[in-house]
């Protein structure tokens, strides 16, 4: 496809003896929209700041176009950043903020005017040239921040949770807008977020991170459909994760039953994690199901019901458009392609049981709430 632009080699970062990044290896192609996704504290912002030149890695290399740039200061990199909470200059108006980089680069005045005006059009802020930054709404400030970075026509644009402070509606609009700008300009975007939905809908490539390590790299569909371990399965969407044993290729056993599946290449009788997405499960009359369970709770979510079903002591999350009352006995049918098999990992047993459904939900919203520094 396109050529490699940035490569991170065995990147390690320590602060006060604490390891924030632990051996990050990653390459980023030209024109790519790559997202670093993970919970707060996973190291995604640190990785971005190293690429931007604001941090020097403790160990490892940052290569740009094949050249090592570990010690190149931020101001000499062909990279611009859209900062978390924007970091716009409060003493300058909209026009001067956007023109800042061009003036530093001593671009002729006429050209500055032309490029700033064009950029104001791209982010739909014509007529706001002389507004003070403090007189703008969050969404407008956001767009100034994007314009201020893009006007310099960088090779790479870094975006550090740029939509975190916006409300849901505006966030959706800006997601489309950013994707459109990225495709129109062909600039490589490296995007940091903890919002899996945002990552899935915008990215060409997603890098899932946790505890300073890369968990999985792949296209959004691959990450969602073939999560590599229980952490990824749990972090991207909702997942029921069960203990199972891979009897042979295409045959997995859990809950005392053997199910056909589409995975192969495991050791005979290897213990595995079995992932079943809540939206993939079919609810059928008890007699027709391969498993039966009792509805323990029902939550209306608008698009669907989230129902918790207890099957032999394990609580499943099932998403269905049909209402089933609490206490009802239902059958569960699993199709072979809905059963995803993963090797056991350090995360096995930590995720995917909905026994404490509400607690886990709280934890997730809490994660989404605080911002990573």
């Amino acid at each position: 496809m396109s050529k490699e632009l940035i490569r991170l080699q065995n990147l390690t970062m320590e602060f006060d003896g604490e390891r924030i990044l632990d051996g990050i290896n990653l390459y980023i192609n030209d024109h790519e929209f790559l997202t670093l996704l993970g919970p707060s504290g996973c190291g995604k912002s640190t990785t971005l700041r190293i690429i931007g030149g604001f941090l020097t890695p403790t160990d490892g290399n940052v290569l740009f176009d094949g050249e090592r740039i570990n010690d190149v200061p931020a101001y000499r990199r062909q990279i611009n950043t859209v900062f978390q909470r924007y970091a716009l200059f409060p003493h300058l108006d909209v026009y001067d903020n956007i023109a800042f980089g061009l003036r530093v680069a001593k671009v002729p005045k006429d050209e500055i005017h032309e490029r700033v005006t064009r950029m104001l059009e791209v982010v739909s802020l014509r007529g706001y040239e002389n507004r003070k930054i403090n007189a703008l709404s969050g969404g407008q400030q956001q767009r100034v921040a994007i314009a201020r970075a893009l006007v310099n026509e960088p090779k790479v644009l870094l975006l550090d949770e740029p939509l975190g402070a916006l409300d849901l509606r505006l966030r959706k609009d800006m997601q489309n807008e950013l994707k459109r700008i990225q495709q129109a300009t062909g600039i490589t975007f490296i995007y940091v977020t903890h919002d899996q939905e945002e990552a899935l809908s915008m990215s060409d490539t997603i890098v899932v991170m946790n505890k300073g390590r890369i968990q999985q790299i792949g296209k959004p569909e691959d990450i969602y459909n073939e999560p590599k371990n229980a952490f990824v399965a749990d972090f991207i969407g909702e997942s029921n994760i069960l203990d199972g044993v891979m009897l042979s290729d295409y045959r997995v056993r859990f809950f005392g039953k053997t199910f056909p599946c589409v995975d192969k290449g495991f050791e005979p009788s290897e213990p595995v994690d079995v992932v079943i997405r809540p939206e993939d499960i079919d609810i059928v009359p008890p007699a027709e199901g391969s498993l039966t369970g009792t509805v323990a709770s029902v939550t209306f979510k608008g698009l669907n019901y989230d129902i918790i079903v207890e099957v032999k002591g394990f609580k499943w999350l099932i998403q269905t458009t049909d209402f089933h009352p609490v206490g009802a006995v239902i059958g569960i049918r699993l199709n072979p392609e809905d059963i995803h098999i993963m090797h056991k990992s350090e995360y096995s047993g930590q995720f995917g049981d909905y026994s404490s459904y509400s607690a886990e939900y709280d934890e997730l919203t809490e994660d989404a709430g605080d911002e990573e520094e």
Partner: protein
Amino acid sequence: MKKNNSVLLSTPYLIWMVAFTLIPLCVVGFYALTDPATGKFTFDNLKNLDAYLPVFWQSVAYSVVSAFICLLMGYPVAYFIAHQKPVAQKFLYMLVMLPMCMSFLLRTLAWVGLLQDTGIINTFLGRLGIGPISMIRTPGAVVLGMVYNYLPYMILPLYSTLVKIDHRLVEAAEDLGCNGAKVFSKVIFPLSLPGIVTGITMVFVPAVSTFYISQKLGGTETVLIGDVIERQFKQGNNPNLGAALSLVLMLLVFVCTGIMNRFAGDDEEGGVIV
């Protein structure tokens, strides 16, 4: 209800202000515009002012020079303090404040002891076979006294403006191609302007009206307007002329601070408008 409370709470100070600011101001105005002998309304006191014009300019010149020396010395210090760890910041802040715990008069007298021909510095130089160098009663000594006494008033507002500048703005400037010098000239300096204006005002205003520093450290050629005014009240026995000079000095200070504030822009945050 809430409004009533705030009126009630501010009453003591409002009374204070009327009694000790507003009324004295009226008294000064009254004296300035009345004849010393007859007590009749007159502009005569103000007519004599051009005789004192050189002294006014001298005072302004000394204060401006002192304020700029304070700025040049204070800015790097304030910048340094603002970029230390919080604990170190507190300690350094306290060090800057420390001299202000001692009486202004005592500190100025201490400089007399240091600078005079038989003072500590000249005694020390004498041992080395140098001097004595006459330092006291020179314009330099007056400027030194002003800088020494008012430097904290420059450092503190500068520090509080600089410490509030968001570090991400510095990163944003670097990101957009600024090296260290350009980060300073394009971001840090403009954002610290309110602090600079406040600092200069807080040095300039007390310096332009001082008489103690010039009397103790200065000589006959360093007479400032503060000295002249003091003399009208204490020796010259012409309080009407003194009041007129005070009034003009006050106007002068107002004009100067007004120009300064305009220069910084009116709606900037961080600085205290004096």
